[in-house]
């Protein structure tokens, strides 16, 4: 059973200097529960590929199937409902909502699902990432590492089939980053979630089962981590 199937995905964006080809025919298949790192230099199209796979951006052509749903056939609101049900996302710069407490931030996706016990579950998720004592703190009152842990709890709270992580340690110092990475893999292993990790750090990538290397919008290598 495949969690993500990309078939000849192309993405071209308009710019003032003319159209720019970001992705030039990507085909990729990721099994359920698999952990995959997308590795490549800056500007190689990593984040764009993640956006397309997470249903945040529509490809110019090709087909994207995630959790059995063809995303290219969905409208904007249907995509939002799809993300709500099947996908969690962790960003490099956390993107917590500054006016909401840690607890409220984690509760939002559950509330969007209409969960009655959103706050109890959110509290449990925060407990699980070691922030049980910081439920009522606002993002501005938390350190970078803590903020990213809240973001992780928020992404994992609805028990998504696929977790997308875009440079999750990119804004953190080495030690804090390592702690967050540990937490990420621990949560993934516990829930059996498929992980699609974008990074430019070789060491982080190596913790995944599979490494896909991207250059100029095309896959240049797709290897098991041990062989990489």
């Amino acid at each position, binding site marked *: 059973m495949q969690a993500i199937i990309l078939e000849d995905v192309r993405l071209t964006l308009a710019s003032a200097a003319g159209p720019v080809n970001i992705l030039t025919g990507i085909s990729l298949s990721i099994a359920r529960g698999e952990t995959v790192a997308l590795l490549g230099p800056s500007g190689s199209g990593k984040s764009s590929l993640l956006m397309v796979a997470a249903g945040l951006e529509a490809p110019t052509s090709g087909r994207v199937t995630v959790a059995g749903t063809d995303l290219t056939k969905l409208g904007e609101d249907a995509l939002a*409902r799809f993300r*709500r049900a099947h996908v969690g996302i962790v960003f490099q710069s956390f*993107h917590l909502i500054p006016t*909401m407490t840690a607890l409220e931030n984690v509760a939002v996706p559950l509330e969007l699902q209409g969960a009655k016990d959103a706050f109890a579950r959110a509290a449990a998720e925060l407990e699980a990432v070691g922030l049980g004592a910081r439920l009522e703190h606002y993002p501005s009152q938390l350190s970078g590492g803590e903020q990213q842990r809240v973001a992780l709890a928020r992404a994992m709270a609805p028990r998504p089939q696929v977790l997308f992580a875009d440079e999750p340690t990119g804004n953190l110092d080495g030690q804090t980053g390592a702690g967050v990475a540990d937490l990420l893999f621990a949560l993934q292993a516990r829930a059996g979630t498929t992980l699609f990790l974008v990074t430019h750090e070789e060491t982080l990538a190596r913790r995944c089962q599979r490494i896909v290397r991207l250059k100029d919008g095309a896959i240049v290598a797709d290897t098991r981590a041990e062989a990489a």
Partner: protein
Amino acid sequence: MNTLALAFRLARREMRSGFSGFRIFFACLVLGVMAVAGVGSLSSALLTGLAEEGRVLLGGDVSVHLVHRAADPNELAFLKARGRVSETISMRAMAYALKNGREEERQLIELKAVDGAYPLYGAVGLSPPLPLGRALACNSSICGAAVEQTLLDRLHLPLGGLLKIGSAEYRVTAILAHEPDRISGGFSLGPHVLMSKDALGRTGLVTIGSLIEYAYRVAMPPNASIQRFSDDAKAAFPDGGWEVRDRNNAAPGIRRFVEQVTMFLTLVGLTALAVGGVGAGQAVSAFLDRKREEIATLKSLGAEGGLIFLIYFLQVMLIAVAAVVVGLVLGAALPFLIEAFFAADIPAPARYGVYPGPLVLAALFGLLSAVAFAIPPLARSREIMPASLFRDVVAPTRARGRLPYLAVSALAAACVVGLALALAPSLLFAGWFLAGAAGVLVVLRVTAFVLQFLLRHLPRPKRPGLRLALANLTRPGAATSAVIVALGLGLTLLATVTLLDRTISAQVKDNLPTLAPTFFFVDIQPDQTARFDDAIARFKSARDYRRTPMIRGRITSLNGVPAATARVEPGSRWALSGDRGITYAATPPKGTQITDGEWWPANYQGPTLISFDAELAKGLGLKLGDTITLNVLGREIPGKIVNFRHVDFTNGNQNFILILSPGLIDKAPHSYLATVRVDDADEEAMYRTITDKFPGISTVRVKDAIAQVNGLLQQLSDGVRAASLLTILAGLLVLAGAVAAGQRARLYDSTVMKVLGATRAQIAGIYALEYGFIGLATGLIALAAGTAAAQAITERVFAVAFDFDPGAVLATVLGGMIATLGFGLIAAWSALAARPAALLRYP
């Protein structure tokens, strides 16, 4: 419902960041709602006062007016059978100050003789506070009179002094401080004088054919029907020429005036709301720009576009509701402020209070405007792509929201317009006003767009300061367009009002005196005509002398259809209500312009033929050969229209809408009206000669009447100008908002400029250039649009030549420029004061 609850919950959390970006939004809405609510509340206070005091203002529950003749015994019996009756007799006359037995200063007065029953309702205010009967009492040689203070001032007469009116002497026993039914009497040419009926008889001025009005007020029992009175009166005296008015419409002129001023001021208030709306839209856009990241995050977590819209719509509407409440409170307080400070200047009785009707209306206007202006930017926000979280560059978003949202916004705007039109007493005026405002908005928007387009494509100047100023005007999100539109609308209104005011007051003050006669003489009796003509002829400079027979009568039916039920255009209805001056002539009077038909033969003596005002005939739907029935002195006179004439009402001369053929009308008792022009040097001498020789003839100095009309116009135009300042204020708020919104970018720019070595004066110069340009452009556009509007109104509506006043207009342009420049430089000041290091350390 769940979505709404969730949206509400999320909105509440969002609002923790405060509302600092919404100050201008709030202020704009408060201003507009306050204006509409205040005007409505004040108007309700006045209209309620007029309605509640109707019987006092009218002097009775019903009143019957007759001109030239008193009610006959049958008519009196009819009136007395229906309640208590009071008779008053009004006319114009000359009053002379008697000093040492000689007639000294003289003055045209409005004379009113009252019976013992007067007033049926309310009370006459006298100083000293004598009972009215005592103040007006007569003995064998002299009667008392109560006069207005202005008469004593003009005649230099003390209280207790002597007056001569007609052939009798009167002692001023009291000052007339309050006349309860004055407002229903109409326009006054002179101070009011009250005397008894007895006393009036002694003047010797009451002759048949003199211009005298008899009014009979009836105080009816509480349950008596006014409608029944009217019906009975019509049945009993179909040819009586009665003009019946009732307490429900005691002062129709004042009521109409209040209604029309209310309409105009409400429209101005709505314009302020529209100007504020531009600022409100701008504020919402800026707010949502700051919330971009949160919106994208919520979307990436699975929030649908509809939910996003709802979260922010709820926040905006919450602020709107708060602003509306504040606006309503301030607006409702306005009548009380007026009462506290200006009660004496309000000519009509007002019932100050809180009126829910206008407040509900103002709230509706405010909320609908908020919806109309806030939805377009809110609809754009739902289109923000979550992908924008990943890119530094702004992800391209749809330029416009989706159609259903824009449709709701348009619907709200249409509701505002529809409501304004539905409630306006004059659909035509309100329609033109709103169409004009909308047209100006479009012109301003298009001009702003073209200007920015041109600036963007201009070759870049070499001087860096100028280059930055031009770039600031055209960069994405620049305030240029919003300021031009918002401030431009207010300035256009001000320019229009100023130019209109100048044109009309020039017409009244400068042009009219060159066209109008120097004197009007009223009530020249047939036996005085030869002596009168001779007296005038003795003045060498006398010219354009015209003496015309005049009698007053009412148009009672058009082609057999009663005047009250005839279908005529609203603008021509006046000709059918109340009595009009009628003259007769064998040959066309000098200067007559016949537009259609033929004049009757000079020796014609047959059935009455009529020459009618061509313009008015159109409004009344009359054609050649139609029959008009007139009631003169209680007699019905039918006549056939045989020609139409052009009548120019703007020159202040003798103008009769009706000229009849002789044969019948000339047999009725009547007096003469005369006009003459004299050189300024002879004016005083002619005034004294005529008033000395003919104390019974009312002499009207046209100069005085013009001054009086001009004074009224001046007050009106001052009020209108004050009102239009409201829209300017709204425009300034928008300007302040735009300046505040651009403050961060400005701070950054000025820091970078400082780092690169620019002095503060150089940076201030850049801002001065930028805002000076916006101000100048706005002023010039407002000038062009205002001139076009004022010209169209003067030529189409007032039918007078447009008078362009460069001084007034220059003030508008400069005012706009200085205001914009001032606000811009205040903003620059704080940007200049910031230390570069602070900003560079924490970018």
